[in-house]
């Protein structure tokens, strides 16, 4: 068993002539909470959909658990809890019926756990899905994704468009799953705060490739703002306040007049850069 829960190598995907993913190497350590950062349209959703087998990659391989494949099979999905960006459930189904429907496809489906999660997230099992608010539907998606006790959770912007209370509930639930059950979480977001709040690892997607991935704390150590970029580091972005540079932590730490910047500033600088390091 490797120490990686998810790994992709040379993953590529184009839509028509538009190359979205250009050889992505993703490595999600087992037991980590991996924040997958990128601008809108950077390819985060496309990557997660390829991991789930909803889309097929044009090239590259994917490893989920111990299996390396070119395309995720339905069988492999049984070990993944997936929450998509938008929750389109059958509006005519009641929550409990939706649980039964989804549960029919998972061998490890735990009906009691699903109902317990519904209770914990304040979802009425007797209510029709069509009557639920957007935030409650997202919580329902979380409950559905967790009820079969998957070792890996893949979440596509799980807190997008929800109110702060619901957002907190979702993040608390994720944190609890990680702490109590050792679940590996891979979630895409462009909310840096979320990555700082619950993430242990982060990967930054830029121009269809992985710009950098590693422990969350290390990202801050690799970036500084300087008045002028010296030799040995990469200038990411220059504005009237100076130049944001990127380099190895030990090099960056020794730069004269270097000022630390927030993760959000670092992400913006990476996203705005014109070339890769």
């Amino acid at each position: 068993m490797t120490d990686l829960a998810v790994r992709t190598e040379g993953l590529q995907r184009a839509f028509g002539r538009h190359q979205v993913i250009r050889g992505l190497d993703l490595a999600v350590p087992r037991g980590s909470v991996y924040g997958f950062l990128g601008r809108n349209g950077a390819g985060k959703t496309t990557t997660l959909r390829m991991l789930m087998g909803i889309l097929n990659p044009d090239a590259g391989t994917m490893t989920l658990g111990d299996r390396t494949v070119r395309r995720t099979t339905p069988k492999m999905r049984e070990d993944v809890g997936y929450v998509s960006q938008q929750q389109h459930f059958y509006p005519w189904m009641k929550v409990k019926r939706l649980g039964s429907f989804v549960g029919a496809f998972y061998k490890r489906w735990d009906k009691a756990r699903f109902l317990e999660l519904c209770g914990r997230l304040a979802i009425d099992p007797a209510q029709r899905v069509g009557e639920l608010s957007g935030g409650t539907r997202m919580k329902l998606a979380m409950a559905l994704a967790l009820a079969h006790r998957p070792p890996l959770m893949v979440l596509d912007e799980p807190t997008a468009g929800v109110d702060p209370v619901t957002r907190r509930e979702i993040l608390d639930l994720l944190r609890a799953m990680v702490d109590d059950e050792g679940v590996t979480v891979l979630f895409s977001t462009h909310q840096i705060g979320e990555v700082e709040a619950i993430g242990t690892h982060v990967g930054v997607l830029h121009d269809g490739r992985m710009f950098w991935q590693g422990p969350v704390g290390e990202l801050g150590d690799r970036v500084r703002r300087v008045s002028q970029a010296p030799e040995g580091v990469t200038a990411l972005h220059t504005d009237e306040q100076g130049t944001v540079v990127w380099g190895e932590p030990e090099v960056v730490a020794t730069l004269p007049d270097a000022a630390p910047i927030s993760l959000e500033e670092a992400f913006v600088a990476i996203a705005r850069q014109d070339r890769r390091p």
Partner: protein
Amino acid sequence: MKWLALLGKELQQHGAAVLGALVLLASVQVVTWGVSFFENKLTLMNTVFELAVFPLPVFVLFLAGRLVVHDHARGTHEFLVALPIAPAHRVLARFGLGMAVVQGAGLISLGTTALLATRREGLPLSWLLQLFAQETLHLWGWFGMAFGMAHLGRFRWLAWWTLFVAGISYSTHFPDGPDVSWFGMMSGSVDVTRLDPPWGSALPAFLWGVAGLVVSLLLSGWRGGILLERWFQPITAYQRATLLGAGVAIMFGADALDPLAPEGQDTWAELPSAPAERAQVRVAGSAEGPLWSVGQRVATELDALGAEVGVERWRPVVLVRDRRAPGRPTVRPTPDDDGEHAVVLRVDLDTPHDDLVRRILREALLHHMGGLAAWDDEARFVLDGAGAWWVGGDELALQALASRYDGEVDGLMSDWLAAGLGPDEAPALAWAGLVSLEQAAGREAVLQLLREVLSHDGDTPIDGLSLRRLTADGWVERSTGAPPSWTEGWARVVALAHGAEERTVAVEVDDGQVVARWARELPAGAVVEWATLDPSLLRPMLDLETEIVEVEPGQRELALPGDAEARVVARILSREGDVLHAGPWAGPP
């Protein structure tokens, strides 16, 4: 468990819409039953074809399209594909459910129609099984095709059009080639396909269905269903309206083009034919059914009669089973028969066998004369009696005649015509006349008379062959060798027939009230039949809508609820067992 969950989801997702469509289909089926029954078509089973040829395929297109695109249209597709279900499972569940619904609808249509038709038509089980196989394959081909096409998304219109054009090109270039369409199993009429099942179309229909399923599986599985997602295009209200308009235009357009279509073989030519040399008697039914034995007998009799009177080839006769109704002749030609190729006779099989054969022969002879006999009452009169004379004793006719003439039927011969007598009495009188002629001048005399009538080519007025005039001029005597005494007897019968008016009903208007009166007490069971006559008609026609009124013993008149300003006609029907003998129609002066 996975299958059950998927099927349950599909059923719940589409149940209400499909149920609504099925109710609509059921109402169409009921209407077609009503129309078929009202028009008294050859078999009620034609309604199964009527449903399977147009309404069911429309339902199939609706259902297949809905099954395929509904999840895409509602955004639930991604939720479904993220579950651990293989694309093939999703496709097969939808295909299986849709096919089950479509086949179920077809089976219910077939089963209920068969239940309704069995009592009236006596459907053989073998034919029902054959129809079931035909419809199953027909719907398999249709649903498979529609399901596959629905997966083509926006290209489905192009694909349907291409198929349409390819089909027309194929049938134009290979008019005698095998039918390779997916609907070939039910493309002909029920009369043709039941007698000559298009089994050659079974394999194409099956393969088209399989092809549709394979296309669905390929497109759903190809690169995670990317083509399906990319090509997805829901049908808009405008497109629905356009399609509906195009469908109606095609229906009317096809009707308008009908006269331009090359003439093919008549449908009746596919019916089973009784073996005969001079006759062509076909039966619209199974060769195992009771109508078949009647047809065989008629063919035999026509063969023999043709040999005697010199007819090399009788015009075709088609026998169709009829249902009984009060006052309805037990053998009657179809009102819409164009008479061009064959006479279609509706036959009430509850009538005694010999009687049917006599009456069928009569109609066959009349038909052989074409329009001439229909317009000349006296030629019709001779031919009316010919069937009975040829086959032998006609007890029912004798009873009818006896009730009219108090048993004075010996030596009867009259020019009293069918219009003046009832449909039972006129042939009986004619038959009696031919019998008396045979007694007076021999069998050859009657045959000679028939030869003269049947060989008439229409160059001279048919009145020239009038039995009455020929008798008066001594033609029958010369032609048949009948003695003068026969002529005298003939004259007596004519006088007697004319003198029998007090035995008929009279229709009068008293103080604005239409009243039917008759001179003597009617026998038990007799009824009065009356109707309001269309002003354009000179006399009651075959399919006149009438009303039957029971008559009390001793009753001599009956107030009729007809309009005094309109032409109300009435007649008396006397009853012999289950049979009603119709008297002549009478109306106000």
